[in-house]
């Protein structure tokens, strides 16, 4: 199909349970969640075990940056979900627009995270300072790498969608849902990381 206008309205809403997107993407997402489970579980344990070290470390972070990044990622997830939903309701251009806005939110997140790193490095903190900073830099950098991967996936799918490179509406819908699911996984991980680093007293 060379036309970018996929007709998704002929795909009736699912009457039975179905996986949103591709099963292969979900295998990848579940593997990623397992990796984050080990990392965040270790961090939760370390936070309780070295309470004073973590309290002192958390006091050097920038809580406003954490809050703004949370709001940015939630907005990104909203734009991606809205794009998928509206394209399924017969507005094919909504997917490209939604995914582009979500990627833009990702860019905002990365910019804020890098400026936070710069402030911390400038103050003399790094991965080797102590256990808290090891967990902080390692976990947030690992997460940021997933934000960047998610942005690339969203932009590639949005471009392929706009230029009509998917062979049919079903494949296009699968690709859109898969990309959005990956993006939501990145957001879900941040929702758990946010209180561990910026909220819990």
């Amino acid at each position: 199909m060379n036309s970018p206008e996929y007709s998704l309205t002929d795909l009736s809403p699912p009457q039975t349970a179905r996986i949103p997107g591709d099963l292969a993407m979900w295998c990848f997402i579940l593997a990623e969640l397992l990796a984050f489970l080990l990392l965040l579980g270790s961090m939760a344990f370390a936070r309780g075990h070295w309470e004073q070290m973590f309290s002192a470390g958390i006091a050097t972070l920038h809580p406003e940056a954490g809050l703004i990044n949370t709001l940015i990622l939630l907005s990104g997830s909203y734009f991606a979900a809205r794009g998928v939903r509206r394209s399924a309701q017969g507005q094919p251009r909504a997917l490209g627009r939604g995914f582009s806005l979500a990627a833009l939110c990702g860019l905002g997140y990365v910019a804020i995270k890098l400026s936070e790193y710069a402030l911390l490095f400038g103050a003399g903190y790094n991965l080797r300072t102590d256990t808290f900073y090891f967990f902080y830099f390692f976990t947030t950098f690992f997460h940021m790498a997933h934000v960047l991967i998610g942005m690339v996936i969203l932009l590639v799918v949005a471009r392929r969608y706009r230029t009509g490179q998917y062979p049919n509406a079903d494949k296009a819908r699968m690709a859109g849902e898969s990309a959005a699911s990956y993006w939501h996984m990145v957001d879900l991980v941040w929702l758990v990381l946010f209180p561990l680093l910026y909220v819990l007293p």
Partner: protein
Amino acid sequence: MKTHALEIGLAGLVLLTLAAWLTGHNVNASWVIGCVLAATFIKGQWLIDEFMELRHAPAWLRWVVSGWLVLIVGMTALFNM
């Protein structure tokens, strides 16, 4: 109402985030940890059901992702309360 479910959900997520952030920064009590973690679980489960659209997915997939959330929130509560 249903046509604006995503917008209403986003507003709820933002309000819960702001409430948890303000409480966590202004009140230093053990019950705050419970409240913040409960808010985290509610936000995560909403994201799983509505943004990820797992509410209508096969039950095993929804339970695996929700189970992941329960495990992380549970471990945080176990080690920090």
